[in-house]
């Protein structure tokens, strides 16, 4: 029993207390401008709700999270299916797709930022292939940049999804597959009617982690666009970071409380829904 104490102590100091303070400071006027901290009731929430920036940041955060959840799972699933057989080539390929997961997110962000610049390597390659000048600003488009950034985020984490889907595919019992074959099911039919449903736990885990990971995203967006162009990629954490940096600590805390509630509100129904699918197993 006592061996749990160090772990709980760390959890208390670095998670429970900050979360509690999130609730406390959101109702104060804590700032970098003065030493006193006074309670202000719901002022911060009212201000935030009336400014409109919060809702735009929330909307962008949800869009970003949804895009990442879709891309990361599609890529991860496709990779898992493609690399399922244990050949030597597949093993090497799996390692390569797992490398981005281990890389620093900031490094990934800066790498793509350099690649996608108007005079970056991607455009140079396109110009060389198309034999005409091409200088599209991949990270300068007010509509599509968020998709590009979500793709980068998904690229970084798709290796992890792949790994979990692979594990899921490997645990499908051979006798079930054999039964399907004996019943004369085609490979396509087997795939959709037998293997996919049996992957439900992997889907639950992957969708939930991708969704929650990207809602709390910061590093990749900060490194690639910093929230631009024209704040179309300003997810809530970037907004919080900017507000905190201005010395408006209480307002930043209020926002992170809102993010905490949003993540909780989205996570529980999504996980519940996905869990429901698993009940057929």
């Amino acid at each position, binding site marked *: 029993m006592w061996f749990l104490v160090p772990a709980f102590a760390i959890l*208390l100091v670095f998670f429970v207390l900050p979360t509690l303070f999130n609730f406390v400071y959101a109702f104060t006027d804590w700032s*970098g*401008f*003065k*030493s006193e901290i006074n309670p202000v009731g719901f002022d911060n929430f009212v201000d935030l709700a009336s400014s409109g920036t919060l809702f735009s940041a929330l909307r962008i955060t949800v869009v970003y999270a949804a895009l990442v959840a879709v891309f990361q799972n599609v890529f991860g699933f496709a990779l898992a299916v493609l690399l399922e057989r244990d050949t030597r080539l597949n093993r090497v390929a799996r390692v390569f797709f797992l490398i981005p997961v281990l890389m620093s997110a900031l490094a990934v962000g800066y790498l793509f930022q350099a690649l996608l610049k108007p005079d970056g390597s991607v455009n140079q390659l396109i110009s060389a292939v198309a034999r005409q000048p091409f200088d599209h600003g991949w990270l300068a488009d*007010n509509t599509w940049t968020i998709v590009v950034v979500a793709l980068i985020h998904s690229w970084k984490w798709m290796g992890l999804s792949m790994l979990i889907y692979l594990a899921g595919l490997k645990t499908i019992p051979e006798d079930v597959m054999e039964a399907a074959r004996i019943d004369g099911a085609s490979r396509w039919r087997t795939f959709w009617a037998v293997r996919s449903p049996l992957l439900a736990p992997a889907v639950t885990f992957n969708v939930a982690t991708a969704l929650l990971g990207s809602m709390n995203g910061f590093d990749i967006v900060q490194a690639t666009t910093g929230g631009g162009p024209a704040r179309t990629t300003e997810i809530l954490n970037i907004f919080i970071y900017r507000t905190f940096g201005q*010395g408006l600590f209480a307002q930043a805390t209020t926002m992170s409380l809102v993010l905490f509630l949003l993540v909780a509100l989205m996570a529980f129904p999504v996980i519940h829904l996905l869990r429901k699918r698993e009940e057929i197993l």
Partner: protein
Amino acid sequence: MKRWTSTVAVAAALTLGLAACSDPTADGPADTTVSWPDPTGRLDGVALTIWAAQNSNTVPQKVIEGFRAATGATVEVVTIPDPYEQGIQTKVATGDKPDLAFWQPTASMLTAINAKGNLQPLTDAPWLPSMAPQLRDITGLLDGTRYAALVTSPAVEGVYYNREVFAAHGVTAPPRNFDEMVALARQLKAKGVTPFYEMGADRWATQWWVQVQLADAAKSGLWERINTGQEKFTDPTVLGAIRKYRALIDEGLFNADIRTATFDDQGTALLDGKAAMVVQVNSFFGQLQAKADTATLDKKIGFFPISPSGNVGTFIPDQSNALVAFATGDTKREAAARQLLAYWMGPGYQDFLADRNTVSLQTAVPDPAGVPQALRDVHAALPASVGSMQAQAVANPDLFLNLADMIAGTTTPEQVAKATQDQFTQLAKAAGAPGF
């Protein structure tokens, strides 16, 4: 019984945690009488820390060498990554303080770091009598108390131009006011030259265009009125300047890639003569110095201040111009920090200027040979210039960010003004400014 003990234990742990997490900056120095040690007195075994940004971390090098030789103290420069100000505010909010730090010496930024609670007052600093009189109190003060030491000439917003482009198109003298500059831009555009170059992607310079247009209004008390809520960003003065900026962009007087151009592109464009003029501050010239030598810069690059009524500059001291000393609670180190400043601005000043190749702020200390002409012109514009928003407003809203949104095409000038005013109100309220 067991349950009761564990409840008490949890409650005690939480209380302890709560106490540990309260604001560590709660107590500040109250008294403002300051003693100044002899600049070259021995300080063996004392180690000081200076926080600096990526663009200011080499500034103190020469001073540190000289200070160590004279006093025996060691000084370590710690680079805080950009965005520098946010990093420092966050660190200070959690109780982490250096002995000294580079800091924008304006009232709004001194407020933002809670100077009264966190910084040492620098009252009666020994170098003040030798400062050029018109620069002595230009900045570094908050509510009448001095908190920052100005070490280099504060930045001025104005126009950097390519002399060769001007000469090639028969322009012999720089424009004498804002309208003349716009007229010249139209002439240049008709001849196929890009008149102005702006960096929409790096965003921060967008605000200079609005601020130089406000120079005359600033002289007649615009910021005092905004500080007290009598005037707003949404009123005709500021909104008009934003609209004018937008109109000039729409007219095509700026580079075609204004939305994606960066700070670095801007420097290259002006130096290569791809654009005629850039409205910028000193750090832009710093970038040019990294790209070309003094002789080339003297030949190619000129500077003139601009405002609607004439050649009036707008000054904006930045983080690389000044230092603040923190109240760390360790009286010995606090005194050593003051001593370093006294050495910097006293016996070490000549060597410092020679090393940085920059203009002197002290009447008795001459400029080193080889300071580029444009920098001397910027410095000469300083006494007549007026304070920028950063220098005079009680809060510093993200005007640049809102303007960059406008350049990217997502907002109107009216929305820019409103967003800026809303944020200004929020910051002024947090800072406890009366009337908000």
